[in-house]
């Protein structure tokens, strides 16, 4: 018997099951295979808020969404075409994310009465038995049973056998989307090389799933998704967190400085600490401090000694660092502060994403305390922007805030990774020693033409000097209460921050025209949704362009001029309006915010609606 094979331009699959069902692994294996097939893709895992919520319950559901295609893919997809649910809780938690008419692959043994209770499902019969799912195309498969059967020969224990069931689903989907099994097989063999029987079992079940697709009638058709036209080159898949780790190691490498990373764990930033603690052979120092204040303080201490001092946290922890960041502003030492934003205020929703710490980054310190701010726009871009954060901090002797978020940190995409020869040099020079000959006093606060002072590290003869948080006298760096000196220093610290604009790329229009009716101005993790939305609106014939900021403080020199080229400036943000305030204040132009504060990224569709809705109201203003 034969099944037709349909071609698809893009597909979104969501794997959902109990935390114990291995959906994250299933998802990432499918991702790797798909990447190797040359598709463009974006992924987003969703973990339960609890460490390990009771099995079978809704809060215990863990899911992984993969969006791949032969076209440019920039978001994990608003909704999915295929939803894999290993139990009823997974269905309850995820049904709203399935497109009408979409396919559900349900593991029937996850829908027995025990599971219905655990998930405290309202209906008295399983949703598979009533018409709850009538608008969907449901495939019921007793994955658990089939898995066990296929392993009847194996002498593995019950639990071990049961654990293979995700491979069955994976195999099935590989068949559905015409993907090869080899990369997964070699992964399994590597992973379980000390447990050959387990490896064997997993591989067997994987193949079983694949054959199940081939041999059963359940599937009307299978699909193929062609290679995407990605820029030629060598690619890997990477998450925002890994990209950040690599970017930091690269910056240390390019500046030839030791990397000191002082941090205190917090979701969703902790994984950067974990990642760096594995890079000791790059001479990376990681310090898990007693709190965020000690973390940033230790980084300042390291920077005073000549290292690349970096600290990381998320909203509440960043709030605690404010005072010490102010010290770094006054000391004019390099400092990189990573804020992997999460939903606030206060503890908020730690596992949900948000962009609401921009104003804190800008103003969350006492006094006039200018720092630089950069923001990555995609998982892979975390690499570029954290590298830039380090470069700016080191070359301009200033604290730099790097504003990523949970959505970027956990998401992944294919990355045409660079090699060392492709990387920028980071120019740093320690002030040389002075021979006791010339008795004249060393002046630590003399500035160069970028208003940057020298980096004069301990251990350098003749440079003995004292710095501190009290206002400094121009040039000497001595304590000064002189009124004019204070104003001068405040202005110089600001001028130094603003001068950075001469050392960053000018702002480009990401998509669209330079002078047009409407521009959508974004920053950070909204890039994918905005780019996709604007692209589609343009193909619908709308005069709308997209500008996306990666450098927020200072703004690129040409930004004002660019923005003034449009009648409408729309600013979508995952907050209640923050960049939009900076734009209004700085350029005194009318800018309209489009805001979503749900701990979730913009969906492409909703964003398109919002953009359309926002424009007329503006034009007739």
């Amino acid at each position, binding site marked *: 018997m034969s099944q037709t094979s349909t071609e698809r331009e893009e597909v979104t699959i969501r794997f959902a099951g109990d935390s114990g069902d291995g959906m994250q692994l299933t998802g990432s294996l499918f991702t790797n295979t798909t990447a190797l097939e040359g598709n463009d893709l974006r992924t987003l895992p969703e973990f339960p808020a609890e460490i390990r919520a009771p099995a079978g319950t809704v809060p215990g559901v863990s899911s992984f969404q993969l969006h791949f295609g032969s076209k440019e893919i920039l978001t994990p997809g608003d909704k999915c075409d295929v939803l894999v649910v290993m139990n009823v809780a997974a269905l309850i938690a995820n049904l709203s994310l399935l497109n009408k008419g979409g396919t559900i692959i349900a593991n029937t043994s996850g829908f027995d009465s025990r599971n219905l209770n655990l998930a405290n499902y309202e209906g008295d019969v399983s949703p598979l038995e009533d018409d709850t799912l009538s608008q969907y195309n449901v495939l019921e498969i007793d994955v658990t049973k089939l898995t066990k059967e296929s392993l009847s020969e194996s002498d593995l224990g019950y639990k071990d056998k049961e654990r293979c069931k995700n491979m069955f689903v994976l195999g099935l989907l590989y068949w559905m989307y015409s993907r090869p099994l080899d990369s997964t097989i070699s992964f399994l063999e590597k992973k379980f090389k000390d447990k050959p029987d387990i490896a064997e079992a997993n591989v067997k079940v994987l193949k079983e799933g694949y054959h199940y697709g081939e041999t059963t009638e359940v599937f009307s058709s299978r699909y193929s998704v062609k290679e995407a036209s990605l820029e030629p080159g060598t690619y890997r898949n990477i998450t925002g967190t890994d990209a950040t780790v690599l970017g930091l190691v690269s910056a240390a490498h390019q500046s030839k400085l030791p990397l000191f990373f002082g941090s205190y764990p917090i979701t969703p930033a902790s994984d950067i600490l974990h990642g760096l603690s594995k890079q000791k052979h790059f001479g990376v120092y990681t*310090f898990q401090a007693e709190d965020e204040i000690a973390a940033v303080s230790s980084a300042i201490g390291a920077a*005073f000694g000549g290292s690349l001092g970096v600290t990381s946290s998320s909203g509440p922890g960043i709030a605690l660092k404010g*005072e010490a960041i102010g010290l770094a502003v006054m000391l004019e030492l390099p400092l990189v502060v990573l804020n992997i934003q999460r939903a606030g205020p206060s503890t908020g929703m730690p596992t949900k994403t948000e962009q609401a710490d921009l104003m804190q980054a800008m103003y969350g310190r006492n006094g006039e305390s200018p720092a630089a701010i950069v923001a990555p726009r995609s998982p892979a871009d975390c690499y570029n922007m954290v590298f830039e954060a380090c470069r700016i901090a080191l070359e301009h002797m200033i604290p730099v805030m790097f504003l990523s978020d949970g959505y970027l940190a956990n998401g992944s995409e294919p990355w045409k990774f660079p090699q060392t020869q492709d990387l920028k040099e980071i120019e740093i020079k*320690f002030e040389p020693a002075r021979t006791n000959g010339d008795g004249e006093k060393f002046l630590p606060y003399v500035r160069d033409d970028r208003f940057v002072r020298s980096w004069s590290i*301990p251990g350098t003869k003749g440079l003995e000097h004292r710095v501190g948080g009290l206002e400094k006298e121009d040039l000497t760096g001595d304590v000064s209460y002189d009124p004019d000196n204070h104003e001068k220093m405040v202005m110089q610290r600001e001028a130094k921050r603003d001068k950075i604009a001469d050392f960053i790329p000018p702002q480009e229009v990401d998509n669209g025209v330079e002078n047009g009716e409407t521009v959508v101005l974004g920053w950070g993790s909204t890039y994918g949704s905005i780019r996709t939305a604007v692209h589609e609106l343009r193909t619908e014939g709308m005069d709308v362009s997209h500008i996306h900021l990666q450098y927020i403080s200072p703004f690129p020199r040409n930004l004002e001029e660019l923005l003034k080229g449009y009648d409408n400036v729309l600013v979508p943000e995952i907050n209640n309006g923050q960049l939009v305030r900076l734009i209004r204040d700085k350029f005194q132009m009318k800018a309209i915010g489009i805001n979503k504060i749900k701990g979730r990224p913009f969906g492409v569709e909703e964003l398109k609606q919002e953009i359309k809705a926002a424009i007329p109201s503006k034009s007739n203003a």
Partner: protein
Amino acid sequence: MAIQTKITEHLEQVTNGNGEDYSSKDFSSDQDVRWCPGCGDYTILKQVQKTMPEIGVPKEDIVFISGIGCAARFPYYMDTFGMHSIHGRAPAISTGLKVTRQDLSVWIITGDGDSLSIGANHFVQILRRNVDVNLLLFNNQIYGLTKGQYSPTSPEGSSTKSTPHGSVDHPFNPLSLSMGADGTFVARTMDRDPRHMQEMLKRSHEHKGTSMLEIYQNCIVFNDGAFELFTDRKTRPREAIYLEDGEPLIFGKDDDKGIRLDGLKPEVVSLEDDSYSKEDLWIHDETDKTKAYLLSQFFDAPKPGETHMPRPFGVLYAVDRPLYEKGVQHQIDQALERKGKGDLNALLRGNETWEIK
């Protein structure tokens, strides 16, 4: 550091002094000292400047890091590297510096408010980690810089600007707290005994690990005479006991008193009548944790019936324990041995890649 960096290159270029032929003058900066006339901080500054030439460290390799307070202005007056940081955070800043720059001699200058109030967390953490720095705790039992509020070391009932009717908090015993935090070097001296202070400063420098040296310092303006019992020539013999490792605990003018242990209970005995001789006395052992704790407890006002114990000065406790920064460095060196110097290209490439043509 096994890995070549701009820092190692830089340090190779600069040929540093051997730190021998200094005089104390070489350590005084060009800044006018701005403490109140008669402040105990002056004599501490003097003793530190006198001691520095003797520790044999080039002054460009010495860093003083302080928090905020009168005491914390200290670094401005030392012609070494220095940072007058923010309130309470000097231990954390010093940890970052020392871990990455083990070649430096790092000194923390802090007050009783700076390190036992706002900074108490960093204080106990650095003690348990045992980073090789010297922490000089200027204890004047008051907040000086903010003009006289009580501090966590002010005795109960202290009437100060913020406690007009007397303070009600039970104060910390800084040395017991340090023992509780598993400090490896716990010592005490006083501003009015320059020679002893110099000796303690040297001991602090020699100790490998976090050296916690409490210095009784008189705040002449807001808390004058707080330590008079110990500093005053007349009462000192009775109220202070100087500890010498391996020596019996003897005090009193013309050494007429000793301290012996009756089980766990220390008691003061007279050496004048013949009932007790030196042989019966408690022999000081800097490495005995229990004894050190007991000595740190010579502090509370004696309960009725108890004999009044003199306040110990000197090194109560000094043991070696692995240094935090060495542990960190060791892991890096191990990693280098195991994996070789990191290959950035390999790291960037990762495990699984694919070609797009």
